Structures are given as C-alpha cells and as structure tokens.
C-alpha cells in the first residue's frame, strides 16, 4: 500500500515535469517555427535603410524600429526614476529605519509589489487626467507619464533587492569599518554598498526586464499602435509588448501577423538576455570587481 503511494508520487512528479517541459517547448518551439524566418534586418527596419533609420533621418513604417526605440526610451526613463528613489528607500530600510518604522514600510512595499500592474496603470491614467485638468492642458498620456507609472511598478523590486543585498552582508563586515572610526555614511559608501552592488545590479536588471515586458501599465498611459520614434517625452510612443498585443488581436494580414511573431521572439530574447545577465552578475560580480582592484 505504502509502496504504491510512493510509486504514484514519483510517477506523478515525472509527469508534471514532462508536462511543464513540453509546454515550454511548445511555446518557444511554436514561436520559432512561425517567426524565425522573419528575423532579420527587415523585421526591424522594414524597407528603410538601417543606417538612416538609426540616425532618425528616415522613418520606419513597416518595421519594429519605432516600437523598439519606444521600449528602450521607456525603460531608460522609468529606471532613471526608480533607481535613485528605490535604492535610497532600500538603504533607509536596511540601515536606518527603526523596528516599528520598518514594519510599516515593509507592509506598504509588499502591498505596492503585489498591486496588479493594471491598477498602477489606472493610477497613472487618472494622474494624467488630474494633471491635465489642474496643472497644464498640455499634459496628455505620454512617454513621460508612462515612465513615471512604470517606475512605481518596479520601485518595490529595487527597494527590496537593495534592502536584502545590504541586510545579507555579514555582521562582522558591517562592524569592521565602524570599528575604524568610519561614520555610518562612510561605512555605507566605502564598505557596504560595494559589497551589495552585485545584488543591487541584478535586481535592477530584473526590474528592467519587468519594464520591458509590461503591457498593462503603458496601455493606459500613452502607448499607441502607430506613432513612429517619439520626438519628445510628451508624445505618444510605440512599445514592443504593446505591439505584440495589438498585432495578436488585430493583424490586418498575414504579413503583419508574421512581424508579430518576430516581435514576440525579439521580446522573449531581450527578456531572457536580461535575466541571464542578472544571474551571471549576481554570481560573479563580487569576485571580478574586487580581484581587479
């Protein structure tokens, strides 16, 4: 009887593993099967010359270039907002906060991390409406407001990774600098942050991946299906994940659908690359950086 149960458990676990692996193979395999042949310069630049497209001399109408540029700008801007705010908040939690303050902040950041991205998007959208009505009529859903809303989405990730990276440093490391007469700030800057850097950077890379793949926030805050490369932070923009979403539901012809497959492969590749990079940095950065000094 007991033997039978054990056998069933083992069998079941192998079965689960097989199902999961076959699903992942089906997803990636299907994408590659349908989309690999579209991969090439034409996917990105369409019929435009790549050089003049990159220099913004010529527009790309039938390629992914505007969407990629939009995603890149969006990611850079959101990370630009979120890194200073998030690391500072993470440092405060790890190094300065008292027990009670920490408890309150912890709860709020857990909550922020758990909020569905569409709720953050809705917040961004209503913020835009609010600003439009009360601050300036010039403010519409745009790249700038999207990036701010996205920054709130990734903020808890950055806070948490910073906090954990600092808190995980061994106690004796923390005391070494202080025992030499370092002020808290000196200890932080010279001793703790360099050691926590790897953890922080890998957290930031994961946050970038989150930024690059999120669709719900930007859908409500200014992404459109057709806008070209954004010329200002106050204009509409295109983005890779939204393009994939848009094409999936309303492709006009098979050719457009094929670009959708291409875009999906591209986004998958970008996200996995960031993921891999984060992993490698987390594993290797401390040794590499410090053996070179």
């Amino acid at each position, binding site marked *: 009887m007991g033997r039978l149960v054990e056998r069933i458990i083992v069998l079941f676990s192998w079965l689960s593993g097989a199902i999961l692996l076959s699903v992942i193979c089906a997803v990636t395999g299907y994408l590659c099967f349908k989309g690999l042949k579209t991969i090439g310069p034409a996917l990105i630049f369409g019929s435009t010359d790549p050089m003049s497209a990159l220099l913004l001399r010529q527009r790309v109408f039938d390629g992914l270039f505007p969407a990629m540029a939009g995603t890149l700008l969006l990611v850079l801007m959101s990370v630009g907002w979120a890194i200073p705010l998030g690391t500072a908040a993470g440092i405060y939690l790890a190094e300065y906060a008292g027990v009670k303050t920490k408890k309150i902040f912890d709860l709020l950041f857990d909550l922020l991390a758990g909020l569905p991205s569409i709720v953050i998007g809705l917040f961004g959208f209503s913020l835009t409406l609010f600003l439009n009505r009360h601050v300036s009529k010039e403010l519409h859903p745009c790249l700038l407001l999207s990036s701010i809303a996205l920054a709130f989405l990734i903020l808890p990730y950055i806070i948490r990774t910073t906090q954990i990276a600092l808190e995980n440093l061994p106690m004796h490391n923390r005391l070494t600098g202080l025992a030499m007469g370092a002020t808290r700030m000196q200890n932080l800057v010279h001793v703790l942050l360099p050691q926590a850097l790897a953890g922080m950077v890998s957290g930031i890379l994961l946050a970038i991946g989150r930024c690059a793949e999120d669709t719900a926030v930007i859908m409500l805050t200014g992404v459109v299906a057709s806008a070209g490369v954004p010329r200002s932070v106050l204009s509409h923009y295109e983005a890779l994940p939204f393009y994939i979403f848009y094409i999936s539901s309303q492709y006009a012809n098979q050719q457009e659908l094929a670009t959708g497959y291409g875009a999906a492969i591209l986004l998958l590749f970008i996200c*996995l690359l960031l993921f891999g990079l984060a992993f490698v940095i987390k594993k290797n950065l401390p040794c590499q950086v410090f053996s070179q000094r």
Partner: protein
Amino acid sequence: MTATCERAVERLFFAAAFVSAFVTLFIFGFMVYYGLPLFSGGRFLAILTSHWAPHQGSFGIYPMIVGTLAISLLAMVFAFPLSMGCAILISVVSRGRLSRILRKVVEVMTGIPTVVYGFVGIFLLIPLVRNVFDAGSGMCVLSASLMLAVLVSPTMILFFCDSFDRVPRSYGHAVLALGGTRIQHFLHVTLPCAWPGIIVAVTMALGRAVGDTLIALMLAGNAVQAPDSVFDSARTLTSHIALVFAADNESLEFKAIFACGVSLYLFTTILVLMIRLAARARGKVGQVG
C-alpha cells in the same frame, strides 16, 4: 559639518522611503477619489453585486468579479498539482545534474514575458481548445486558466522547492537512518514542516493570477456575463479596466472601473496580510529547526 551632512543624507533616504510608501496609499486615495460617486451612500456593495448594463444605467461589476475568481481559481487548480509535482521532482526525486538543470529551466521560465504567453495562447491554445472540446469560440475561462497556470507555475515551483530546502537536513537523517525512503521522508518530515511556505507560495501565485491582465484580456473572450461553465466567455476585473478606461471620464461607466481598481487593491491587501501571517508561521517552524 560632517554630522549635519550625515543627518541631511539620512533625511534624504527617509524622504525616498516615505515618498515610495506614500505612493502606495496615494494610489488608493486617488482611485477612491475618482470613483467617488459610486462609493457614497453604501453604493459600493450594490456595485459589487449588480450587473453591467450601461444602456440601462447599471454599472455593477459582479460579472467581472465572478469571472476573475473563476479564471484565477481554476488556474490554481491546474497550477497547484503541476507545481507540486515539479517541485517534488526537483527537490526530492531527481538528483544532481538533472535537478539543477530542471531548476534552471524553471527559473528561466519566470523571465518569459506575459504577452508572449498570450500571443502563443491565441494562435495555439485557442484553436486547440475549440477543436478538442468543441466549445464555442475557444476563448473561454478554460483557455485563460490554462495559460495563467503556465504563467504562475514557475514562481510557485521555486517557492515550493525553497520551502522544502529550508527544512533542516538533520530531520531527514533520522528517517533515512531508520531505513525510510526519500519519498517517506518527504511525506512525513518535509511536507509537514514546509506547509507555511506552501501557503505563501499559493497565495502569491493567486495574487499574480488575479492581477494579471493580458492573459485574460487576450484569451477569455471578455463577454460581460458571470460564466456558468469553463467553456463560457468571461471578463476579469483587470480586463474590464483595460477595455473601458477610455470611456467618457465623466460617465458612471468610467467611474465603475475605479470600483474594479479598489476591489483589486483590497484583494491584494488581504493577500499580503495572509502572506505575512503564513510567513510568520514559517519563521516559527524555522526556529524550531
């Protein structure tokens, strides 16, 4: 001089933490403010329980709540056994290299963009569901749940493995020394010790399933009805926001999406509190070890 500088920087750090925390509360305040006419005079409950028929002046989100629960709970029904099986395979059954490779694959899966799952879902899963079950358009609760299960499983598997690994090894030696098998050890020692971690994982996965927008938006069909069967088309709270947000922002139709937002916010709060409770229990189990 330095001391004042130190104080100033500390204040700056505090300000950053405060702003970030404040945003969390601010989001809630903003949504209540925008949805205000719907929340006054006990109308919030009425909205949660009535139907969506804008032409008849009814802006209830009941169908969306049922749709959300149906899709996410069904997703958990698929994802839980799958994740448990995979976690057992990684932590207990397989060894060495295979275990490491499997874990890596699962970790990589957490990095796959949601929209890619949705995209593949539309062109691969929907026709499959339509043909296999001969069920309407194929855009239904079942399709969305299946894809959501795939989406949340990797996180759940990693959490399960983590909770299994936290159970002190010394416990196991006792069982193994008595001639028990590794499965017996797992059933009688690991599992009873790891349950708080399992609850945390399931709660987090549920939160993720409820909060996800794209999978349901792309695969569930978005019909405004409380689904009767898994083959019915349904709409989640998140999809509803995505579909209606562009409406006339003076209309009650528009205000109603803030009711969705507030519901999602409150739901998240409950889940976070549950996770904290379970995590505390987990801390205790850890201490005993």
